[in-house]
């Protein structure tokens, strides 16, 4: 019922502008068989306007659809301020995917409509409903962030047991994410002035799923299994603020392919100096002890 009201609200308030940025969905079919896994793509047509920032929320009914995967593979968006993430509204009946990102330099629309993200759903139960686009914004690449007029088109679908089986679920991705660089930075305005790193990469097929970080004193070469990985995002505040560790970042795509980049220690470990110091002290003590023993054993010369 709640979702039905949202649909009515959405239809009522969907603006209709000529030469507006158009948010819409691409799908192979709007008739889905129960149990079928399928993809729909959120698309943006800038209508030849140069757009460099977008923001939107996608709503769907959780009683008939289960979200299996969100993919930003081959996305128009290069940088996410809010990576597309799934949540539920307070009623638990509406699934929400929120996103916000930018296209540095802008996209002028000459390739036509382009994909922002793919949503891979599984049809759970019979029913007819819509996937909605709300709070959609597209800003012009004019240095002022001027809002372009926006039109959005919802995706209406029906799920039944006798609907034809359609594909659309992503094919197997065997390519690793692209090479990337880790940047080290420090700024008084963020993270209490602590050192942090930033990183970003793309995966043109299935999209980046998550990143993992490992900080370690050792240069493990390519033997990454030795490292103690944990999931993290960019920006990431370094645990070792002395900057004496190797920092490893692993990008993992939605099909499990990995790419690792390494940030070398900016201030190499001072441990060796400590070892050298105590080594010299130890050797000196041994030498002094040896001399003392030698003197004691020296025979008394008799004339």
């Amino acid at each position, binding site marked *: 019922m709640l979702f039905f009201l949202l649909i009515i609200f959405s239809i009522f308030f969907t603006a209709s502008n000529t030469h507006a940025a158009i948010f819409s969905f691409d799908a192979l079919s709007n008739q889905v068989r129960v149990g079928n896994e399928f993809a729909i793509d959120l698309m943006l047509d800038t209508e030849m306007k140069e757009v460099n920032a977008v923001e939107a929320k996608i709503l769907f009914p959780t009683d008939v659809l289960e979200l299996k995967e969100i993919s930003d593979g081959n996305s128009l968006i290069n940088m996410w301020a809010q990576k597309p993430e799934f949540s539920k509204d307070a009623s638990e009946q509406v699934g929400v995917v929120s996103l916000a990102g930018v296209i540095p330099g802008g996209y002028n629309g000459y390739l036509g409509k382009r994909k922002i993200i793919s949503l891979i759903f599984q049809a759970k139960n019979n029913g007819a409903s819509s996937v909605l686009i709300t709070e959609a914004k597209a800003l012009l690449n004019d240095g*002022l*962030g001027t809002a372009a007029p926006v039109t959005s088109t919802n995706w209406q679908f029906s799920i039944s047991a006798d609907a034809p089986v359609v594909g659309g679920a992503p094919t197997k991705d065997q390519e690793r994410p692209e090479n990337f660089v880790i940047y080290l*930075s420090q700024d008084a*305005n963020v993270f209490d002035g602590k050192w942090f790193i930033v990183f970003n990469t793309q995966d043109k097929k299935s999209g980046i799923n998550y990143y993992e970080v490992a900080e370690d004193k050792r240069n493990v070469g390519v033997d990454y299994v030795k490292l103690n990985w944990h999931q993290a995002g960019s920006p990431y505040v370094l645990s070792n603020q002395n900057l004496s560790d190797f920092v490893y970042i692993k990008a993992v795509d939605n099909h499990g392919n990995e790419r690792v980049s390494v940030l070398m220690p900016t201030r190499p470990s001072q441990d060796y100096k400590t070892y050298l110091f105590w080594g010299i002290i130890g050797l000196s003590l041994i030498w002094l002890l040896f001399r003392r023993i030698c003197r004691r054993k020296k025979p008394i010369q008799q004339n």
Partner: protein
Amino acid sequence: MKKVFFPAINFLLIGALAGANLVLPIFVDLARAQSVQITATVVATVLPACNDTVDNDSDTKTDYPADPGCSSASDNDEADPASASSGGGGGGGGGFVNIPITTVIFNGRAYPKSAVTLLKDAAVAASTVAGQDANFEITLSSVSAGNYNFSLYSEDSKGRRSGLLTFPVTVTQGATTKVTGIFIAPTIDVDKSEVKRGDNIAIFGQSVPQSDIIISVNSDDEFFGKTIADKDGIYFYNFDTSVLEYGSHLTKSKASIGNQLVSGYSPAISFKVGVKSAIKTETKILKGDDNGDGKVNLIDFSIVAYWYNRPLTAEAKQKVDLNNDGKVNLTDLSILAYHWTG
């Protein structure tokens, strides 16, 4: 003052089937009356080792089904199971199959001896130095197939940076995609931040040698001037401000060669017409450069994105609130993306 208009050359599509090389027209751009020609050329034909008419494993047997190492015509390894397991340090590879390399080649015009930087999906991917004739070429190898936003900018001999020229390209697996006809817009600057009405203001910058430079001054009416760049690409134009009203104005420039190749417009820069003249001082602060390293890139984006939809501290307001509205939202990210340098 004469108004000059150029016919906009927005689209140019080519298509050809040349021998074994397939030339695919993909699309042509571009904004601001610039055209760029993009073609994808399949430069290597790849045949599996078991279907390439070559005895790859030197066992005197060639291809499927004659070679026992081939399980099918699409098998890419002729090595016999027995010989492969016996070690001997070889067998694999073969060296006869052309591995297709996905490459993108960019060529066009910037400024004489200028540094040209290429961004791939907003990250610096390559750079080069243009020749004395302002021509440049950049080759990018090992690119995955897919859709990319490539951007280019250049810095002139005085360190002035051009605007970011961005174009989307679809890269095809195993093909060489050529992006030609790139024409980076001129750099631009003025000698005064404020000019006494009726005095001249000098508008100058750099472009391709001997190119025609169109200068636009935006007021209530738009005024145009024309000059020619010298052999080093330097141009200089004295604009008589008597036609302008008091207040702030913007100026920008574009270049053309032989009235056929036309660049986009440079970024617009502002000056004021008042009752006195003031020399412009070199206090250029790049908007969005939060960490002050002279670039707007992923680091600055991360700092602004950190504050996205969060309450700001007083210090953060000074740095990351780019439109001074007391919050960091999509508008600030858009402003940062506009000033992106990579």
